[in-house]
Every structure is written in structure tokens, then in C-alpha cells.
């Protein structure tokens, strides 16, 4: 009847609006499933999935693992810190050794951009990118867009501002691709040093004034400052960043309309977003987490259906 146009989910850039629509429709039904008394369904009972995390993660890892288990897949977990990677094994060797144990799908997070794509060309398994460096984080973008769709109905014409560290953010790039494919308008906002030089070539608006950016949008997606990726100083002090780009109740209340506040987590409370905003009615942060499981179930289900 219908299938995704891709064999792997490496980035939003590779998929089309039909794929996204199919993932959302499937995720709708999975959202109903995960709210049942018995949340498990047997679809993937003959599929084995390896979660390879070469970089730290809480939400994404738990969310993928839960999604896999809800679908009855067999799951093996791997964290680089406790593995033979530290003994000098290459990525392809590591993965091929895992695949020799008859694994069908690999969910991978890696600190280097393009790692998922590289793997998809060299090993015989379905790859799902769970974040590769500052490149893409497709399932996060899907769950963000799914959460907006849930709140606003349609994304066509909807205005989304992404605020913060755009330069180091894979969430920002995937979100831009995903929102644009669904017909939304995107603006990025942050200190000029944290906005990539040629980002306007992607067709996004650029704004350095937070108040103006928020006044324009229907949805604000607040990103974390990724201090771990910043080897030089991109702004004078964290305090100055908070004063210029931190979202607080005062700014939110001064806007002419009520906007939706999102955050991909982990939140640095008091930096990019204050606690009262993060916990306010306008915030959908926890709904994003719930939707994350449903969306990842949909991605795994649709990709696994193509494995013969």
C-alpha cells in the first residue's frame, strides 16, 4: 500500500513531505497504543535492534529503547564509554561485530557529522540516525513538528522561531528541513557568533533581537547552549546571554499573542529558559517527550516493514 521512500532514516533532508505525513499518521495510532492499559504490541517481535550511543544521551536513548520494547523488538544497548571502542576498534568493525550477532537495525548517535550515512554505506542493516555531531537529529525534528501539529492542527503557514545555539545544533538543522517541508516558516535567533554564516541560504529568516523574533512567531523552540561543543568563547558571559536570549515570563507576557514554548531537552533552567516558563501552560516540553516515543515507534515500524 505505502512505504517510506528511504531504507534508512539518516536525516530529514533525505525524506519528503509524504514520508513525514505517513510517519505522523502512524504515530497518531501509536500514541493511542501507549495510552492503553497494555502498551505493548507484537509487530517487531522478530526484529533485533542495537542502540549504539557513542555520545551521551538520556531522553533519546530511553525514548528509542522504550519505543523498541513497546513494539516487542529485542534490544541490545551499547555505550562507547564502556566498550572496546576505547581499545581502538573502528566504527565499521564494531558495528559488523554487532551485526554478526544477527541484528536487523541500528540506532546510532555519534559525535561526528555524517557517521550514520557512512555506516549505511558500509554495513548491511537499517540505520536510524539518533544524532550525528552538529548535522542532523531527524527523530527530534519529527517529534517537534508532530507536537506543533497536535497543538495547531496544520503546519502550513505556521511560524516557528528557533532560539539559541544554532551553530552547534543538529536539532536546529533537522527542524529547519522538517518544518519547511511541511510548509512552515522558520526564523533563527541568537547571538551572531552562534548563527552559521550562510544559514539564510536555507530560506530561513535571521533575527538577533529575541523580543522581535518572539513577536513574529507562533512557536518558539528554545535550544540549549552546547558548552561541550564550544572550544572558544562565542559570547562574553553566560550572564549576558541570559539577559539577551533567555526566555522569561516577563517577555512572554509582553507579547501580543500567546505562543507555544518548546525545548528539546536537556533544559538548563535559568539559562535559555526560566523555570516558570518551562513549567507554564504554554510549554509543551513534556508532551514532546511523550510524542517522542510514539514518533520513534512509527519510524521503527515503517522502516522495519521494509526489511525482508
Amino acid at each position, binding site marked *: 500500500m505505502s512505504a517510506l521512500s528511504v531504507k534508512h532514516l539518516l536525516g530529514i533532508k533525505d525524506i519528503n513531505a509524504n514520508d513525514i505525513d505517513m510517519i505522523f499518521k*502512524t504515530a497518531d495510532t501509536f500514541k493511542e497504543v501507549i495510552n492503553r492499559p*497494555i502498551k505493548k504490541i*507484537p*509487530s517487531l517481535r522478530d526484529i533485533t535492534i542495537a542502540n549504539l550511543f557513542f555520545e551521551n544521551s538520556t531522553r533519546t536513548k530511553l525514548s528509542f529503547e522504550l519505543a523498541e520494547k513497546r513494539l516487542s523488538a529485542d534490544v541490545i544497548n551499547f555505550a562507547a564509554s564502556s566498550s572496546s571502542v576505547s581499545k581502538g576498534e573502528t566504527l565499521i568493525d564494531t558495528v559488523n561485530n554487532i551485526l554478526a550477532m544477527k541484528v536487523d537495525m541500528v540506532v546510532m548517535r555519534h559525535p561526528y557529522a555524517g557517521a550514520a550515512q557512512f555506516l549505511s554505506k558500509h554495513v548491511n542493516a537499517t540505520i536510524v540516525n539518533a544524532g550525528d555531531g552538529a548535522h542532523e537529529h531527524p527523530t527530534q525534528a519529527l517529534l517537534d513538528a508532530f507536537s506543533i501539529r497536535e497543538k495547531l492542527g496544520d503546519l502550513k503557514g505556521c511560524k516557528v522561531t528557533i532560539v539559541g545555539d544554532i551553530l552547534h545544533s543538529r536539532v536546529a538543522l533537522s527542524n529547519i528541513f522538517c518544518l519547511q517541508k511541511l510548509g512552515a516558516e522558520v526564523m533563527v535567533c541568537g547571538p551572531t557568533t552562534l548563527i552559521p554564516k550562510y544559514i539564510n541560504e536555507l530560506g530561513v529568516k535571521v533575527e538577533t533581537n529575541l523580543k522581535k523574533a518572539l513577536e513574529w512567531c507562533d512557536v518558539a523552540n528554545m535550544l540549549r547552549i552546547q558548552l561541550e561543543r564550544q572550544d572558544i568563547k562565542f559570547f562574553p558571559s553566560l550572564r549576558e546571554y541570559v539577559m539577551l536570549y533567555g526566555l522569561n515570563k516577563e517577555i512572554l507576557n509582553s507579547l501580543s499573542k500567546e505562543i507555544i514554548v518548546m525545548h528539546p531537552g536537556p533544559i538548563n533552567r535559568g539559562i535559555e529558559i526560566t523555570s516558570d516558563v518551562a513549567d507554564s501552560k504554554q510549554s509543551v516540553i513534556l508532551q514532546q517527550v511523550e510524542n517522542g516515543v510514539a514518533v520513534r515507534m512509527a519510524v521503527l515500524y515503517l522502516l522495519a516493514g521494509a526489511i525482508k
Partner: protein
Amino acid sequence: MSAQLQLLNADAFNHTIKRLCYELIENHNNFKNTVIIGLQPRGIYLCARICKELFNITGLENIPNGHLDVTFYRDDFRRRDSPLVPNRTQIDFIIEDKNVILVDDVLYTGRTIRAGMDALLAFGRPKKVELMVLIDRRYSRHLPIQPDYVGKVVDTINSDNVKVKWNELDGSDEVLMITENHDKL
């Protein structure tokens, strides 16, 4: 060359639905502990029709009814060219200890019903599960499943196709058998 044979016309179709309702009333009296669940995608139309007709006959308004999607419980996942896109499940009541009537339009191999029973059990442990179908394609079962309430029994071969049309969906109430083999008619 394919040919169509009408198995039920609009009149017979509606008489059959009325008869199925009376059979249900015989066994379930006031429907106090009974719920009706239509299987997605096409069993939900029979379910809606049965509920409407039961109301016309008995005046009972609140017989709980819902829709159940069996896509995730099917045994042919990954054996098809592409995954089936699921439909919405809507069961807003508790099925624990209830008499459940599963409703579908055509019973053929029995595999959908098997998946339906698995899907149903994810919502609790019913007291009893019964099966109602509009058309029973007998002698073609792959699993030991038999219906409790049958609209019409037909003899078919594998290459035949039985299609139930609904007024609200297809513009007319009728049941057709589409057959490839001309001599059979």
C-alpha cells in the same frame, strides 16, 4: 475476464441486518453487560448499522460500541511489500468482564479475527467474545475460527473477491462477488 454476481441486494441486505439484531437480542436481552466492537477498516460500518438498528428495535441508546484496529497484531508484517498503514482504535469503555461482540464484514481465512482477538486482549479480559460477520466465506479458513452470527454463507474459491458495499461509503447497500472464472456463473 471478471464477472460480478450480486449476493445481497439493498432489501436483502437490510433484512439480514435486522435478523442479526434479533439474534443478538435473543442472546443478550437488555445488553446490560454487552459491548460491540467493529474491526477496522470495514467492520466499523456493520457495527454502526447494527447499533442503529438495535436502537430502532429496542430503544436502547447506550450500548457501548467502538472500533478496533488490528494492523499491529497481524501475522503478515514484513511479508507484504510495504507495511500496512494503521487505522484509529477507539474503545472508550472497559471490556473487562464484558460480553464482547466482534463485528466484521467478511470472514475469510480467519487471520484478521485472530489478530482482532489478540488486539482485544490488550484492553483487558472479556467475559466472553462472540463473532458477527455479514458474509462467511466458508471452507476457506486457515485457522479454527467460526462465527456466532452470520448474515450469509457463501462458497467461494481463492481467486474470488467478496465486496460489501455500504450506502454511507459507496453509495449503495449490496454485497458482490467478483469472480475471475466466467464458467462458474
